[in-house]
């Protein structure tokens, strides 16, 4: 801890979280060494804390003081895979902003800029910008208790939308524990509360409820009730289906049903629907249980099985089409011109 204080004389407040994180990592090193690595502990807030400890030990073991500027990039490269480069750059930008005043930090800044060139490639550039913005977001978010320096406030205004990253960079707020575990725990809790809020919007009647337990109860009840509804409705549909079958035979003219061609079938729909519309509704008035078999015969063979119910259902739903449009039924163009003003797609 004392080592850090030497380095960051002016920025004690800003250094607090980093100090604590650094402390956790249990480095043993000289001033320069630890100051270099002080930039890195920003990884800490990330979910993958195991990684961070590993990389630090790699660096800690292999970096003598004098060689640190040059060796740091190579070790860093060596120790990190592609994912981690995002974090590394995040650190760099983090340090670029508030700590420019400190001369050792300036050194680090240059070092890490140089490091960036080593790391290379343009694929890094855009994530780097994201890191910049994201880190600044976090920085500003986390600096609740801190005075914003002028540089920080400038960075504030520069913030664009931070793009989504895989890693959630967390900065411990003032007065909060900066233990690696508690940070990860905080991230997890925030994720969970965010999802609970999502669920609150989905489940009706949850707006007043607060607290995980009651919310979960409500969610469970809702899912169970939906599942029961599916079961109940499927029983209903099973009961009704035989009538559906017969109605189809009554409604559609034979030649339409036996048509193999998609186009003609589609057109046939249009015609059939003009006819069937009134017919079907006439049927609906009568007793559903009684099936009036057409005189033409018992079984009309349906060559194209999918066509027939599609013909029937659109006609039925002509009145209910405003309900169905959100359902997203899309229609073939020929049908669209007919009475179906909505959308029904016949997927044949």
């Amino acid at each position, binding site marked *: 801890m004392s080592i850090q204080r030497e380095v960051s004389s002016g920025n004690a407040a800003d250094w607090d979280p980093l100090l604590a994180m650094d402390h956790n990592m249990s480095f043993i090193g000289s001033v320069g060494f630890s100051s270099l690595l002080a930039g890195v502990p920003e990884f800490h807030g990330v979910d993958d804390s195991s990684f961070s400890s590993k990389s630090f030990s790699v660096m800690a073991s292999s970096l003598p003081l004098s060689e640190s500027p040059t060796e740091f990039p190579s070790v860093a490269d060596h120790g990190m895979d592609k994912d981690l480069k995002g974090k590394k750059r995040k650190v760099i930008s983090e340090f670029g902003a508030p700590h420019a005043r400190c001369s050792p930090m300036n050194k680090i800044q240059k070092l890490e800029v140089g490091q960036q060139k080593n790391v290379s490639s343009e694929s890094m550039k855009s994530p780097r910008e994201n890191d910049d913005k994201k880190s600044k977001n976090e920085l500003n978010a986390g600096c609740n208790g801190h005075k914003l320096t002028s540089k920080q406030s400038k960075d504030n205004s520069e913030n664009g939308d931070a793009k989504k990253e895989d890693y959630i960079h967390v900065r411990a707020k003032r007065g909060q524990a900066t233990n690696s575990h508690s940070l990860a725990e905080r991230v997890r809790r925030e994720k969970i509360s965010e999802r609970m809020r999502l669920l609150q919007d989905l489940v009706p009647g949850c707006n007043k409820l607060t607290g995980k337990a009651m919310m979960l109860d409500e969610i*469970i009840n809702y899912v169970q009730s939906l599942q029961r509804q599916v079961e109940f409705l499927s029983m209903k549909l*099973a009961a009704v*289906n035989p009538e559906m079958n017969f109605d189809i035979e009554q409604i559609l003219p034979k030649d339409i049903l036996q048509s193999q061609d998609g186009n003609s079938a589609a057109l046939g729909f249009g015609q059939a629907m003009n006819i069937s519309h009134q017919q079907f509704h006439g049927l609906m008035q009568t007793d559903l249980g009684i099936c009036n078999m057409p005189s033409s015969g018992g079984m009309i063979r349906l060559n194209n099985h999918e066509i027939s119910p599609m013909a029937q259902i659109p006609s*039925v*739903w002509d009145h209910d089409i405003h309900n169905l449009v*959100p359902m997203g039924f899309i229609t073939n163009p020929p049908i669209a011109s007919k009475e179906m003003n909505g959308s029904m*797609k016949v997927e044949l």
Partner: protein
Amino acid sequence: MKGGNPNPNPNSNPKKPLLANHFIQALTRINLAAQTSSTRQRSHCIKRAAYVSMACAAGSRRAWSRAMLQKIRLRSRVLRLPGDRRSIVSVVRREENRADVLRKLLPGGQAMEFSSLLEETASYIQYLSAQVRLMQTIVDSMFG
């Protein structure tokens, strides 16, 4: 098409065509076998078709849809023997907390951590409610 109805929920639209198409196709298929099956069998098939349509509409992006499709495919192949019941083994009932209950409800929920469980539940609720609305509309249209 979809713009005809002002639907405030942005999430509900993209999956509905798949859901409806698949389900109606399945319904018609079950329809045609109506003479050869009992009502109870048909209702079971329709229920399964409902869940399959949901899972197909959700695609393989969601853990619950993947788990559900797997389960259904497995079930259709494996014949259930009468001796399969777990009457012999006594199951120790742990005290279930709410997360466990939710895991049992959600297909594939056992292997998830809590935050992804919540996310999957949200998606599951979306699709489930869409399916219920679809089926309700079909039933309503049939009964006037």
